[in-house]
């Protein structure tokens, strides 16, 4: 079917896809070897948006370093912030008030829905349907407005602080979230009409970019990419943080491991997120939104690891502390990086059109990969 890795024969085309290419969603640079239309090899070249966040964080205090993580996976910035807040709380053993936990989880799930909506639009655009992109943004706009109302920003909120949230929720928050849920539910059927049931879309997605369960584990895939291959890996289930242990939801799992399975997993996840929001929105307990913390935070000597489930997968923060006000070494394990490493494996022997569909289904955010 396809030749060995790295063999470049006469007649092979080597094409640079990116860093300026419409379907790489940013500055990803892929060097692909083609035999006619068939992809023989894909080699990612990274670093076009590397800001060395890990090095920067070594000079930032435990309050300051949280805002930087919004700039990594900007589509799930809340969840990244959440991970950083959690690790500081774990190190200092801060008890987070119930109200803050509820608010955090609600905002996390809203972020996840917003991220999946953008992915849905971008996925459809990658396979050539441009209209769904705008429809997805219509719904996402409402979430952005809710974020703006409560957190003061639309994308890089920096709302989580060690010990809780920066502010209490806006008085209109509950009402606007409920309005959004009703609005989004009424529009979900359009998602199926426009894209899911479309035979062209299904033909483009089914049996494309297949990854087996074993390979998904070996490549360290996480999030929807791994769950589509049948790997149980939802951090919210495996090691629940905040109030995730108290809510009912199902982990979206598929077994095919192809692009369409990844599509279905994300669509299910949007529904599950809505279920979580439904359970929490009416029961936000009264109380503080922030725990009392010291002015200067110092993590005790040792190393800490926390992971959360972002919209893309397992996001981990590893801190090596020497007991100072700044971390000695900080490592962000980003889900996109591992998912990208499986790209070459998935695309072997497929067509160029498939490459674009697979990249879309991986839902890559380049700043997340480059950090």
């Amino acid at each position, binding site marked *: 079917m396809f030749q060995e890795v790295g063999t470049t024969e006469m007649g092979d085309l080597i094409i640079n896809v990116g860093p300026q290419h419409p379907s790489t969603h940013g500055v990803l640079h892929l060097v692909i070897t083609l035999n006619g239309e068939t992809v023989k090899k894909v080699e990612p070249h990274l670093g076009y948006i590397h800001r060395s966040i890990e090095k920067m964080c070594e000079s930032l205090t435990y309050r300051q370093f949280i805002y930087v993580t919004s700039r990594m996976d900007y589509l799930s910035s809340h969840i990244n912030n959440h991970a950083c807040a959690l690790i500081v709380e774990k190190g200092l053993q801060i008890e987070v008030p119930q109200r803050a936990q509820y608010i955090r989880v609600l905002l996390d799930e809203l972020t996840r829905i917003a991220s999946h909506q953008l992915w849905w639009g971008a996925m459809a655009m990658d396979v050539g349907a441009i209209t769904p992109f705008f429809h997805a943004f219509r719904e996402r706009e409402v979430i952005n407005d809710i974020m703006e109302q409560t957190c003061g920003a639309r994308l890089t909120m920096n709302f989580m602080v060690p010990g809780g949230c920066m502010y209490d929720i806006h008085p209109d928050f509950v009402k606007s979230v409920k309005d959004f849920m009703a609005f989004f539910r009424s529009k979900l059927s359009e998602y199926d009409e426009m894209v899911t049931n479309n035979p062209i879309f299904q033909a483009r997605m089914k049996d494309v970019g297949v990854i087996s369960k074993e390979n998904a584990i070996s490549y360290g895939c996480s999030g929807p990419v791994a769950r589509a291959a049948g790997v149980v890996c939802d951090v919210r289930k495996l090691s629940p943080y905040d109030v995730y242990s108290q809510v009912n939801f199902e982990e979206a799992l598929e077994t095919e491991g192809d692009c369409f399975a990844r599509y279905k997993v994300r669509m299910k996840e949007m529904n599950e997120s809505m279920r979580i929001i439904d359970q929490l929105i009416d029961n936000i307990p009264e109380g503080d939104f922030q725990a009392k913390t010291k002015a200067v935070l110092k993590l005790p000597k040792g190393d800490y690891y926390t992971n959360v489930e972002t919209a893309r997968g397992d996001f981990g923060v590893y801190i090596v502390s020497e007991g100072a006000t700044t971390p000695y070494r900080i490592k962000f394990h980003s889900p996109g990086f591992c998912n990208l490493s499986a790209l070459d494996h998935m695309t072997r022997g497929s067509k160029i059109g498939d490459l*674009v569909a697979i990249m879309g289904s991986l839902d890559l955010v380049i700043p997340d990969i480059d950090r």
Partner: protein
Amino acid sequence: MLTTLTELTIVGILILTLFAVLGLVLVFMERKVSAYMQIRLGPNRVGYKGIAQTLADTIKLVVKEGLTPNGADKFLFNLAPFIVMFGAMLLMAPIPFARNSQIWDLNIGVLYITAVSSISVIGILMAGWSSNNKYSLLGAMRSGAQIVSYELSAGLAIISIVVLTGSLKISEIIASQETGWWIFRGHIPVLISFVIFIIAVTAETNRAPFDMAEAESELTAGFHTEYSGMRFALFFLAEYVNIFIVCAIGATLFLGGWMPFHIGNWAGFNHLMDFIPSSIWFFGKTFFLIFVIMWFRWTFPRLRIDQLLNLEWKYLLPIGMFNLLLMTIIAIMGWYF
């Protein structure tokens, strides 16, 4: 001799003007259609409700520098847009825009159309090859494979009408629809061949969902990646003019061209319909078909190249051939209205 030459010059200039106007109108139409389908407003700043937007874009394209890449084959690179344009212009000749308004009513009109419409692929291949760009090359090769295969289905669909009318002359085909358009008179087989025709010409003009040649999310801009300025504008214009022409052909063959909506021998009703000028009938039908093709583009995802060829060889061609057989039987037995 001199008068003939003058006449030809005037006709040529008029066609060129028509081209430019058509291009402007169609680009504006596409932008508005896409905007409304995408719950946007579309261009609304230049001129009244944005009408002058495409004019402004054209001026921008004309004054832009036309780059020629260093590695390109200069001669072919510069020639290609003109070939594409010529192909589109030649097709204009046998199309009747209104009653008695046809530039050249040759007796093999349908054959002429099918033959000349494949010229543009040469231009596309030239553009892709001479650009010395891998994206362009891939786009051009895809375009070649696609047009060669979809020509078959389009041809079969056209032949089914020829079978019914028994003539290749466009004016006679229209005259044969005096008592009703073929799409209504020819039962389901004509409907099927109409659908096949629309799909095939969408593919032949490289329109989404069959825009493999320029698939912007895969090949950035396909065969015209390296073109800029006026030469890009020519490709752009040729694309829209080609859409207009294939839709005009579709309207002529299946929807009666300029022929008003007639029903059998209802003389009163037919006379009433005749009050609407024939040019309005022609442009109305054509623009309706153009709208349908734009509707496709803004709804569907793009097919993959192998699926595209599967669709042709596994679905459209067998259905088309079977349909032609059915049509021949109907024509011989006289089972149409």
